């Protein structure tokens, strides 16, 4: 079997509102499937259905060959879930939190302690092991939460917006941890509203918007599909940027955006590059940096949905 997750035509309604509208998801074993979309697009609902926490109103989903409706217990044996909020007991220490889960999973006292110590070590929490988690930083809590979901050695890991609210350093640390799990053969289902995160971690991507799959493929394919490339230009002398922008606008006849240092313009034909260079040379503009690159996922999302990937005030996922 090559598919760790296979979901077809998932439908879920909350009070008559469609949260999921025939969503298909497939995760290949040992890879990261990224589910990308703004708030309220149906990411959490999808994860909860695949985690047996929520029943779909329609469609079919299986995890490692087990139907989530008919064999929820088998599915729960295979998965580790890290939800949107770090689900750890604040009053308990890191060790107590992990030992509890281990004991629930049937580890005896000694093995539960060993397993907890192992994971705390692996997630760089050994120093804080015996402190109540209410004193942990946001990043530490997320790591503990992730450690808790790893106790039973799951072959699938569901991460629902694991880095929301984390600072860049903690986020990078968490990414590192996720990559290590994938190296060990774990399949990861990752939801995120950060395009950068999806680009960094995901092998395959599904883009959700208003409960529908609006695009899917590898991050590379998605970038190709958005059709355009982006030309980036930096001048040696900052005061020449204005002149350079005029030149580029004349060649590409598209509006150029700039942040005062770098000018960016989407282009459809890479042949514009030599033309831009020639004209700039004619005008005596000293080019500091000139490149043609694939668009970022932010730019892709804009192209796919017609709106920027900003969190929207739609809260159909009231499923607490």
């Amino acid at each position: 079997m090559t598919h760790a997750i296979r979901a077809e035509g998932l439908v879920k309604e909350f009070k008559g509102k469609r949260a999921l509208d025939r969503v298909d998801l497939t995760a290949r074993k040992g890879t990261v499937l990224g589910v990308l979309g703004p708030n309220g697009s149906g990411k959490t609902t999808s994860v909860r259905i695949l985690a047996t926490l929520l029943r779909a109103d329609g469609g079919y989903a299986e995890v490692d060959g087990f139907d989530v409706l008919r064999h929820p217990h088998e599915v729960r044996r295979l998965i580790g879930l890290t939800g949107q909020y770090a689900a750890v007991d604040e009053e308990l220490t890191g060790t107590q939190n992990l030992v509890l889960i281990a004991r629930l999973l049937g580890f005896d006292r000694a093995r539960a302690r060993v397993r907890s110590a192992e994971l705390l070590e692996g997630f760089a929490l050994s120093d804080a092991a015996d402190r109540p988690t209410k004193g942990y930083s946001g990043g530490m809590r997320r790591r503990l939460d992730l450690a808790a979901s790893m106790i039973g050695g799951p072959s699938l890991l569901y991460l629902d917006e694991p880095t929301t609210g984390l600072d860049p350093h903690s986020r990078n640390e968490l990414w590192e941890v996720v990559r290590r799990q994938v190296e060990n053969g774990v399949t990861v289902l990752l939801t995120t509203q950060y395009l950068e995160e999806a680009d960094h971690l995901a092998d395959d991507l599904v883009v959700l918007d208003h409960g529908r799959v609006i695009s899917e493929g590898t991050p590379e394919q998605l970038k190709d599909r958005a059709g355009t490339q982006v030309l980036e230009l930096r001048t040696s002398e900052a005061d020449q940027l204005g002149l350079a922008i005029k030149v580029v606008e004349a060649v590409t006849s598209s509006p150029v955006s700039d942040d005062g240092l770098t000018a960016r313009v989407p282009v459809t034909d890479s042949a514009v590059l030599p033309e831009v260079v020639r004209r700039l040379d004619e005008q005596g503009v000293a080019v500091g940096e000139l490149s043609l690159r694939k668009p970022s996922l932010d730019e892709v999302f804009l192209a796919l949905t017609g709106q920027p990937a900003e969190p929207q005030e739609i809260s159909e996922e009231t499923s607490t």
Partner: protein
Amino acid sequence: MSAVTTDSPTGPVGPAPMAPPNVSPLRTAHQGLQLAWRSVLKVKANPEEVLGLILQPIMFVTLFVFVFGQAMMGDWQAYRDFLMPGIIAQSVIFATLGTGFSLSQDVEKGIFDRFRSLPIARSAPLVGAILGDLVRYTITVVMVLVVGLAIGFRPEGGALGVIAAGALILLFAFALCWMSAFVGMIVRTPMSVQAFGMIMMFPLTFGSSAFVAPESMPSWLQTVAVNNPVSHVVDAMRGLMLDGDVAGPVLWTLGWTAIITAVFFPLAAWAYRRRT
């Protein structure tokens, strides 16, 4: 009462049944005990809560005995003896609110989702929470008694009578726990659980024989108070700790305990399954 569930009316009803056959009763019990231990650890780790558990009985007993005692019976010692069984019952009954409150908190924090995504018995988190809370109620009973003894309460029923009365109120509290758990599951936030619970608990305890004899109440209230299950519990405890009827009130109490459990255990389990 605010929104109940988020399932669509046309959709299938609730996820898998509780305690799937994959989990043996023995393992279910083990898991319940682990989760009960979690509640105990949380109390231990929270000095404020421990302090509250200790100070609240001191405050209530002292206030009631010394503020109302003379006015009620012309003699605070007499009122103290009358009050002790009632105030033990009242303290424990109010403490059952904690069950719904902490369950609601677990839902809000996502801890509930973690438990439900584990291959454990579906009922384990619910059973564990309630077993753990029984420890808290026991502390409450003991504390109120200690304060009573300190101000001269000497129950004629002796140690045996006191233990029997304590066991009876704990049993009754166990039944009320399911009611509290039900409220905790259907009300959306921990704060509203508390508010809603208070509205239920105040009439239940004050409209009973816990603080005053129902004979002094207007006739409509008397009817309510005499038939209030809390009155039966308190009367039974008075019988066991002091003197008076025992058999009748104890039977009534056991009957009510069975009825409340029979109604609210399935309701709590149902609401727990439906809570998504």
